[in-house]
């Protein structure tokens, strides 16, 4: 396998060239709020130490609002018109491992039976250039969910900093290899340089997801949930900023002669999410809704798709208006599990 090296300047030149060829170029924004479409290569941000953006990268694959089709009324009949899909070739520079690794996880639910072509087309058209992460705060727990600052899952190409200015460039997928081949003028081959050894401070592993799952298997009715969810105000910002939360709503918007059907982000934290027409609500209190969120991430999705629905990015904790820390909740679950083992022994 060939090794490649790219400098910061070459990355900017590459972005510039792609912009010239009408590619959509995305990078974390200057103010750290989100992954942004950039218009000028000078806005490209490649920084390992960057704090995860306020909202995750998923919006470029699963947008907050997406037209499914338009409908046009014609006398007594209707015409359904497909929404023009985005065919633009897209590249994302500097994706955090905790963002990039969410894409294959999401892909499972969007493809397990019926295939969501809106999502798939975007994934197909996008080259994700991941970047090793040198950020850590008390909210991060990627190592606890089986990832790491060097996790390559989901990236097509992975960058590891060699110095402030130079990156080791590792193709991961065929799409990544093709991208490198197509842009080789910007990339140096470097057989004499080998993959840098991990000199990253890795976040300490805080809990075992196996333990958590085993506890969740048996404690659906536990009082724990009602304490954990007691101070939750049900605002759902956690779900909206999450790289893996994928629940959505489908609504129609009308304007007399034509209208559209739209798919919008939604969340299990809302009371209305599961409320039946009859008024019966399976999850009528916040504790149950909080249980659903944690269980879906660490049990249900694992049971169903053999993946954890969490990448440990810590966004939900950083943004929570009432400072609920999912990491601490999971640590609690972990220690509850260990207690039960000790009791049984």
């Amino acid at each position, binding site marked *: 396998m060939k090794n490649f090296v790219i400098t910061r300047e070459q990355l900017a030149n590459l972005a510039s060239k792609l912009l010239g060829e009408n590619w959509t170029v995305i990078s974390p924004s200057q103010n750290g709020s989100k992954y942004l479409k950039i218009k000028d290569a000078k806005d490209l941000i490649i920084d390992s130490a960057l704090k995860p953006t306020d909202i995750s990268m998923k919006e470029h694959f699963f947008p907050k609002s997406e037209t499914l089709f338009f409908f046009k009324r014609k006398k007594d009949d209707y015409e359904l018109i497909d929404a023009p899909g985005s065919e633009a070739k897209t590249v994302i520079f500097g994706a955090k491992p905790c963002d990039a690794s969410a894409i294959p996880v999401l892909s499972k639910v969007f493809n397990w039976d019926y295939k969501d072509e809106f999502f798939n087309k975007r994934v197909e058209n996008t080259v994700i250039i991941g970047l090793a992460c040198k950020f850590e705060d008390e909210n991060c727990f990627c190592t606890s969910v089986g990832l790491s600052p060097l996790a390559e899952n989901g990236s097509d190409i992975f960058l590891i900093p060699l110095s402030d200015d130079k990156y080791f460039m590792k193709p991961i997928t065929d799409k990544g290899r093709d991208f490198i081949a197509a842009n080789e003028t910007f990339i140096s081959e470097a057989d004499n340089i080998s993959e840098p050894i991990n000199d990253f401070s890795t976040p300490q592993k805080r809990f075992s997801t196996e333990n958590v799952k085993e506890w969740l298997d048996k404690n659906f009715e536990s009082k724990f949930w009602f304490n954990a969810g007691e101070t939750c105000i049900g605002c759902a910002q956690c779900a909206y900023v999450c790289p893996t939360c994928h629940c959505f709503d489908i609504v129609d918007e009308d304007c007399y002669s034509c209208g559209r059907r739209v798919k919008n982000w939604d969340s299990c934290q809302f009371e209305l999410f599961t409320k039946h027409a009859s008024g019966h609500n399976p999850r009528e209190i916040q504790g149950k809704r909080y249980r*659903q969120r944690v269980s879906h991430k660490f049990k249900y999705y694992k049971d169903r798709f053999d993946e954890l629905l969490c990448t440990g990015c810590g966004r939900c904790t950083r943004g929570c208006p009432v400072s609920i820390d999912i990491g601490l909740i999971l640590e609690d679950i972990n220690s509850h599990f260990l207690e039960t083992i000790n009791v049984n022994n």
Partner: protein
Amino acid sequence: MNIYKPELVEIKDIIVETPDIKTFRLQFKDPQLQNNFTFKAGQFAEYSVFGEGECTFCIASSPTRLEFLECSFKMYGKVTNALNRLKVGDTMGLRGPYGNYFPVEEMKGKNVVFIAGGIGLAPVRCAIWNVFDMRSEFKDVTIIYGARTVADLVYKHEIEEWKSMKDVKTIITVDPGGETSDWKGEIGFVPTIVEKVAPQSDNSVAIICGPPIMIKYTLPVMLKLGFKEENILTTLENRMKCGLGKCGRCNIGSVYVCKDGPVFSYLQLKELPEDF
């Protein structure tokens, strides 16, 4: 392929069942689709009124009668109210069929008991006609149907037809206080009537559908009568949006009701977390 895009169907007929329940007879606008459309008893579909949204109901007609596709709905929210405003000849959207179905093939050679309450008769009716159209392959058939009042009974004409059939035992009941002066049927809640009728439980399959409270009290009666847990079938009515196992709304634990359901046996229900 856009999995969220419905096909266009035309309303061929509207039957007013009760003041707030209607049945639509639908046909695909595209004749080829109409010819090729098949489904199984118990499956559901997504019905849309453009500009208002989509709504999930079971297909109420039998898969043995494919000339029309029927759905019955009760006016409750935004979409069902919009459906209520539609007229014969109007166009609406339909996606489906989705979900699993009643194991009609496996029920052959067995006694069949249908128990329904209120609009819960819709999915059961689909199975009833399916069974009737192959009547010789099943043993005894019993129908127990109840509603709050006489006016709330749906499919009134068909009920009369079932009653007149010799090889079917049809018991209709209304809740106490819901009867009229000339009411000749039973008076009492469905679970009580089931216990009274006590259908044969050996070599029998029961299909139960109705409001959650009815199901809750009927299940113990069925067990008491000796029905096997795997032979008590019901359909779950979780809120759904996509019907495709994507939107996450109908989750009960790791089960997607829209894909793994809506038909569940009591044996399966027992294993699910109490989240429905």
